[in-house]
């Protein structure tokens, strides 16, 4: 056996678990979803295998476009807020002494050690009528406010859940930056703000893009947080898909919606890859 063939075989052996995983749990379901989206819904649920493109026509129904639009709006708002809070946090951590850096990073990931659902429940306790936030406001003579079961609560929940996914890539990008670039900028007469605007920020754009994607993707398709913290009127595309599968029992349309969601995310990923390569 030639050496290169042996090496290829070795690579195959090592890659096969991962490839099998991707094939069975990613590609096959994707093909199934794609296939199902072209069939019709059975009378009592299930799938009738007759070809149709009608499901795609339903996508442009103002009702569903509205849900898609709401989802984009909520996910974009969450991403922007995460960036606004995450960037200074990551910047601060990157400039801490080494010992404190580790402590801060552990603190950032620490919430992940508790069950996600439990943490969202905690937010219900915080935000509801007699909750901690309203009690606090009451001491100041304010409120009570309707903090729960609206879009704002969804944003708070998403932001809370996915902020670490913004901070970590930003931290990596800022940490990698040569501190002498900031010094060079100051030496050439730039104020701290100009240095940030002209040097630090442009050079950490890849981190900004990665972090934004990491927050946007799970926020956009999320259905647990809108279900628990959102009101009866707030419905996101994730809830819609879930409802099609589990409540309306319309698998073909659920599949079509899922494809639409995937399409939006693929467009974003491609855009991010393109931007990262140019930067």
């Amino acid at each position, binding site marked *: 056996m030639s050496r290169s063939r042996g090496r290829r075989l070795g690579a195959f052996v090592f890659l096969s678990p991962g490839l099998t995983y991707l094939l069975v749990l990613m590609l096959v379901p994707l093909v199934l979803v794609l296939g199902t989206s072209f069939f019709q819904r059975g009378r009592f649920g299930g799938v009738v295998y007759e070809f149709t493109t009608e499901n795609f026509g339903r996508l442009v129904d103002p009702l569903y476009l509205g849900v898609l639009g709401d989802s984009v709006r909520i996910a974009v708002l969450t991403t922007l807020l995460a960036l606004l809070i995450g960037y200074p946090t990551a910047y601060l951590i990157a400039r801490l002494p080494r010992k404190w850096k580790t402590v801060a990073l552990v603190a950032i990931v620490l919430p992940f050690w508790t069950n996600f659902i439990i943490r969202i429940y905690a937010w219900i306790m915080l935000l509801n009528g007699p909750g901690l936030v309203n009690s606090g406001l009451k001491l100041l003579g304010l409120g009570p406010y309707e903090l729960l079961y609206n879009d704002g609560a969804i944003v708070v929940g998403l932001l809370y859940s996915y902020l670490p996914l913004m901070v970590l890539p930003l931290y990596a990008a800022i940490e990698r930056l*040569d501190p*002498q*670039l900031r*010094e*060079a*900028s*100051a*030496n*050439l*007469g*730039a*104020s701290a703000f*100009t240095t940030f605007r*002209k*040097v630090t920020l*442009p*050079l950490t754009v890849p981190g900004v893009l990665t972090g934004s994607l990491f927050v946007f993707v799970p926020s956009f398709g999320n259905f647990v947080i809108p279900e628990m913290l959102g009101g009866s009127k707030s419905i996101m595309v994730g809830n819609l898909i879930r409802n099609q599968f589990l409540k309306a029992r319309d698998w073909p349309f659920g599949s079509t919606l899922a494809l639409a969601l995937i399409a939006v995310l693929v467009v974003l990923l491609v855009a991010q890859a393109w931007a990262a390569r140019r*930067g």
Partner: protein
Amino acid sequence: MLRIDGVTRRFGDVTALDAVSLEIEQGEFFALLGPSGCGKTTLLRIVAGFETPDAGSVTLDGDDLLAKPPNRRPISLMFQSYALFPHMTVAKNVAYGLERERLPRQEVKQRVEEVLETVGLTAHASRRPAQLSGGQRQRVALARSIVKRPRLLLLDEPLSALDKKVRADMQLELKRLQHEVGITFVVVTHDQEEAMSLADRIAVFDSGRVRQVDRPVELYERPRSPFVADFVGANNLFPGTVGGPADGDSGSAVLESDAFGPLPGTPPAELAAGARALLAVRPESVELVREEAAGSLRGSVLDVSFFGGVSHISVELPGRTKPVLVAVQGAGQVAAGAKVGVRWNARDAVIMAADE
């Protein structure tokens, strides 16, 4: 022009700078020379404003520099790593400092073009730093530093990232440029040859202290401490005590060496007879003679290395652990193992006080 007075900087238990005082003149090419970790870069960073001294003052033409933030000091620093902005073109990098002064766009453009012309990078103006060679990056960094016409340019190991051939070219270029722009240059280097060939004056640093400030020739010919004698160029050192004057030569004296008896040399005026001292003699001042020649130390040749123009011959002397280094023109005429004598003139050997 630049006056550094009693500057001290400690990092925890380490004293990086210990009451350093220096005065650098307008238009001078000044070098801070010393081994790595001697504090020279810390001093540079204090002058640029990236470090704050624990004590002492730094003034530029009488203005207190320490009171100003780094971006308000009329000083440019060329970083050892060059610290070019990777996301900007060469022209943008060079224009950066001028744009911060809010100069009219036309003037910025013109001055950038001029300085790129000076450093010979006009053709590369729209390249990114990653697309340049080491020598080209160094010139971009230099252009970016001088385009602001600073009163003082600090250079941190400016040539250390370049290979030997490019380095020699850039040394000449730096010197030419300094004449041309008339800016005061302060260069930090650990390379004594670089310091000697570039600078008008050199301050030799060791463990956070200035050991000697002198012009290159004086530094080489009249080192005032064992550290300087050993660090600047090659030297043969003999420990001993100061003896009386040598016969027939009023300016000279002998060093009563521990292992070889009296050796001829020239002491500084302040050394009293009987004091602990060190005699230093350069390899090129040592003469290789026949074994039985008068006034010579006897030994045997250990090794001959040929360097093209000169040869280095190491001679082992009984009673001395390090061999004596002798430099001769052309190829050496002796072979390893030959019995030889070494001697030198009193005026070519320096006697200095030993470290306490």
